[in-house]
């Protein structure tokens, strides 16, 4: 479904990822794990069009994405939830969700994903009129994912959804990711918290200093003695 081939992205000459290739198949949850600064976020940005790769190709269902404007990439069916969530802070929860379905016309069409969003995150429904900035970190993450679901993506990309969230909610969000997949979407998730991420993922990649260090089925990677020692602290 998504195919990233030999993508290199640099910031002012500083190479953040170098010749990274990953594949995501329809219906999978794929986890990209790695330490801080490994290039995980850059990888997602390069796919979403927030950063322009220096070389390499990104194709999504046969369509070339690299070089396409970010808002056009959203329209192809990729929803991207960036690390800092980028909600519209002074707009209400309702307006934030509403903006998610901006590309669709017709009430029924626009509100179609709302049921799923409210089933996954009932708190959002209670806080509809509240400004996004007044939500807790976890609720903001829920809203960011909710807004992304409103674009009716085929592929959902999450950047560190567990960041800055109390542990109880982290679990809730990872459970939600599983249910999003069960609802027919594909998920690409980037995480520092490798253990939780591998728990829900089908396959995983480990990035280290901008390169793919290891890839395989999540269970395999979880069982790998080096990974256990270096990343899982076991």
């Amino acid at each position, binding site marked *: 479904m998504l195919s990233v081939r030999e993508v290199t992205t640099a910031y002012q000459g500083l190479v953040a990822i170098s010749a990274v290739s990953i594949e995501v198949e329809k219906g999978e949850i794929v986890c990209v794990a790695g330490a801080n600064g490994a290039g995980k976020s850059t990888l997602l940005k390069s796919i979403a069009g927030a950063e322009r790769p220096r070389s390499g190709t990104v194709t999504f269902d046969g369509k070339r994405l690299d070089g396409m404007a970010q*808002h056009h990439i*959203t329209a192809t069916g990729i929803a991207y939830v960036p690390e800092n969530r*980028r909600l*519209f802070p002074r707009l209400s929860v309702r307006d934030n969700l509403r903006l998610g379905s901006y590309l669709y016309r017709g009430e029924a069409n626009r509100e179609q994903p709302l049921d799923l969003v409210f089933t996954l995150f009932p708190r959002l429904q209670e806080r509809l009129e509240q400004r996004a900035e007044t939500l807790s970190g976890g609720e903001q993450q829920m809203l960011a994912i909710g807004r992304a679901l409103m*674009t009716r993506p085929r592929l959902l990309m999450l950047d560190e959804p567990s960041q800055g969230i109390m542990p109880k909610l982290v679990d809730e969000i990872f459970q939600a990711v599983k249910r999003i997949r069960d609802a027919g979407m594909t998920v690409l998730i980037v995480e520092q918290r490798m253990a939780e991420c591998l728990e829900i993922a089908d396959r995983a990649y480990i990035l280290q200093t901008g390169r793919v260090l290891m890839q395989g089925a999540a269970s395999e990677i979880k069982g790998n003695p080096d990974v256990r020692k270096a990343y899982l602290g076991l």
Partner: protein
Amino acid sequence: MGLLYGLIAVGLALIFGLMDVTNFAHGEFLMLAMYLSFFLFAFFAIDPLLSAPLVAAALFVFGAVIYLLIVRFAMRAKANAGMVQIFTTFGLAIVMRGLAQFFFTPDYRSIPQSWLGGKTISVAGIFLPEPQLVGALVSILAFVGLYFFIHRTDFGRAIEATREDPGAVALVGIDKNRVFAFGWGLGAALVGLAGAIMAVFFYIYPDVGASFALIAYVTVALGGFGSVFGAFAGGIIVGLVEAVTALVLPPSLKSVGIYAVYLLVVFIRPRGLFGSM
């Protein structure tokens, strides 16, 4: 008059609020609108009141094109972006003024007779000039329209979202450049509407924008930068202060009051009366 000041200022506030760019050519947009109105009258004998929507539409296109061709590139500056934007719009103002001098000549022009010009209406024994009255009415309508547009429509919500975080709207598939261009168009259309009405009762000359632009900056700063409602309220205050000053002091000093009030507000409440920053 205050409502017209408000209408001029609201275009400025809209653009500033949306993208943190101060349009120093705002007065020249006004000048252009007044000339358009004048030429439509002189060549086609269209009354300024009728041509006002036309002028506003033309200014909308003009504003959007200015954004797409000039301002968009100025915003890409990596270093000293604020300065680059100031010089860009300031330079635009000088170019527009120069072109106006060249093509329209520095002569003072006016629209001698129109439906409204020079007429007054008597309300309970007080004589009010009709053009100003209609101007006030049009301003109020424009404000109400703008309010509903921003708060009740999808594109209005997109504008609000872009104002909040222009880098994030692509996440929901909105093209920020389109919103910015529209914002410039809308800002220009609002000042165009004001210009079209003012063409009836002001002399039209290449530098006419400068004095009004100055008042517009005061109005926007008074009301609070970026606040559309603030610009509206600021305009009314400026208009009232000006009128009262003209009563107390010699009329040639009528602007003194405006700047005195402005100074006071800046000292006591630097973010403006309704500013939230």
